[in-house]
């Protein structure tokens, strides 16, 4: 893999506007090879994707693993990617799917192997605590996974319903349903806590 040219992506990256679909960030020239495309997409979207995954899996290290695996998968399947413009959509969907897999695996692990309380909190646990410090995020944890994904993609990724449907692999109607139910449940939880 070669390093990306500095002039390839001159778009400034804002930490909180990660997944906003802007053509300059999303479109990848057709003639690029896998290395160059991965480098460009990494420079533009890695951080936002890691944050998205962190909101889903509630673990920064795991989120990084998930995003890196998604990049690796995209690099290996770059030739099979028909439309290089949809590379970011592919990455997003891959991150969501792998986050689901991580959560599914974590359920099994938590069920079979209880964790002993650590002696000293690590930096990673500090990040998790930071995530869970907010009451809204804590309430978000109580939602079902599909509803949580819909809310995160909708209000953190600022994606449209079609993009959310593509990322989650469901229909737009299902996206609407999940979003509405999630908002209702979240409101109930927040009003109850308040």
């Amino acid at each position, binding site marked *: 893999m070669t390093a990306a040219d500095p002039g390839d992506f001159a778009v400034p990256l804002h*930490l909180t506007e990660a997944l906003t679909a802007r053509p300059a960030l999303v479109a990848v020239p057709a003639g690029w090879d896998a290395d160059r495309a991965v480098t460009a997409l990494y420079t533009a979207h890695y951080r936002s994707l*890691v944050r998205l995954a962190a909101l889903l899996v509630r673990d*920064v290290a795991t989120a*990084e693993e998930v995003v*890196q*695996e998604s990049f690796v998968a995209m690099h290996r399947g770059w030739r099979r990617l028909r439309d290089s413009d949809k590379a970011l959509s592919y990455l997003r969907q891959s991150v969501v799917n792998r986050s689901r897999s991580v959560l599914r695996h974590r359920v099994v692990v938590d069920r079979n192997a209880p964790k002993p309380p650590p002696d000293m909190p690590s930096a990673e646990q500090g990040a998790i605590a930071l*995530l869970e410090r*907010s009451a*809204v995020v804590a309430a978000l944890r109580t939602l079902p996974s599909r509803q949580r994904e819909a809310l995160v993609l909708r209000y953190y990724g600022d994606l449209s319903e079609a993009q959310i449907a593509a990322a989650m692999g469901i229909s737009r109607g299902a996206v609407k349903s999940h979003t509405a139910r999630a*908002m209702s449940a979240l409101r109930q939880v927040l009003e109850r806590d308040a």
Partner: protein
Amino acid sequence: MSRTEAQYEQALRRVLHAAADGVEPVGDGLERIRARLTAPQPLPLAWLLAAYAACCRAALSWLEPLSGQVKARSVPAASWAQAGSSLRALAQQRAGPGPPGTLGALAERFRLRSAPPRRHGWLRPAAAMAVAVCVIAAGVFATRGLPNAITSSGLYRNVTRNGSHSGTGRPGSLNGQGTRVPSGPSRSGGATSAVPGGQMPGNITCPPSIGNVSGSGGAGTSPAVSPSPAASPSPASTDPVSPSPRRSPSPTPSPTVSPSTSPSPSPSPSPAASPASGSASGTPGSSASSGSAWPGAASPDSGYSHGMTSNPAPGDASLRVGRGDSAGEAAVLAAAPPARESPQASVTPAQAFSSPCPLSGSAGDQWFSPPGTLTQGTGQAGASQPLSTGERAT
């Protein structure tokens, strides 16, 4: 969308962004991605791929000459086409205009069809060869276990026993330990009633009774006991007779009863049978005439108490005779030719082999067991039961 909902959405958006801003990934993500891309594959997967590639290469190298042969054989098709065309012409001449007859149909059958050359035409013979190889491999694997199955079923041993019964007898059958007992030169005293003490040749099969050889005077007196023609009547003369190392000097009680094949089931009191007759074996109550004596089943050191107890008819004299006390004599007699060689055999070989173990019902299973298994436990005599049956015929 109401104003409250919009406020909720804005609040949710702010909260999510604020929460996610605290997450800062490590900066070496790209290096880790590169490392994952350049990392070698797992070893099992690499081995699997290598093996797959090697197999494909070998198969291709093996199929290439085969495809050449197939192509070479396809050349005579031109001659078939010529024959078909001539047949077709002949049919047209005979039938004239009209629908083609049988000859025409035959000619049409052999007409060369100008099929386009197949791109993967070699796949059919390759698939056929692969199927053939699979069938052959399956056959080899199936036939590999056949000898074991035959051996375990006992058929093999039965056959070999029939073949090697004469002379020294079946290996390992005489004493149950795999040691061959030299065949006795004379089996003239084949009649069980003629044997002093009513000792059956079936005593050969009784390991515990073998140890009584030295003690039973009757054993030495029997001409069939000693392998040499000049058999001494002394009990000590029986010692060289039986080569079995398994002889135990223990005074194993051994009942001496004439077999059921004997015309007189009640055995004559022999010196070996009755303790009063000078039997050195010291078998108390081992006289078969007593009837009540069942020392083989009573004494734990008899070595075949299990077989005795499993006898279907304890009162049967033949069963007890099979556990004869003079084991030395029995061993010598066991080495004698089989019963079927004796013209006086009252039991035919077919009968003898149909019931390989008349002494014990459980010993019948042990008959086909290997000697190693027979020596274990109490069923040692089971290995020589059929021979005793044959001896009983004499």
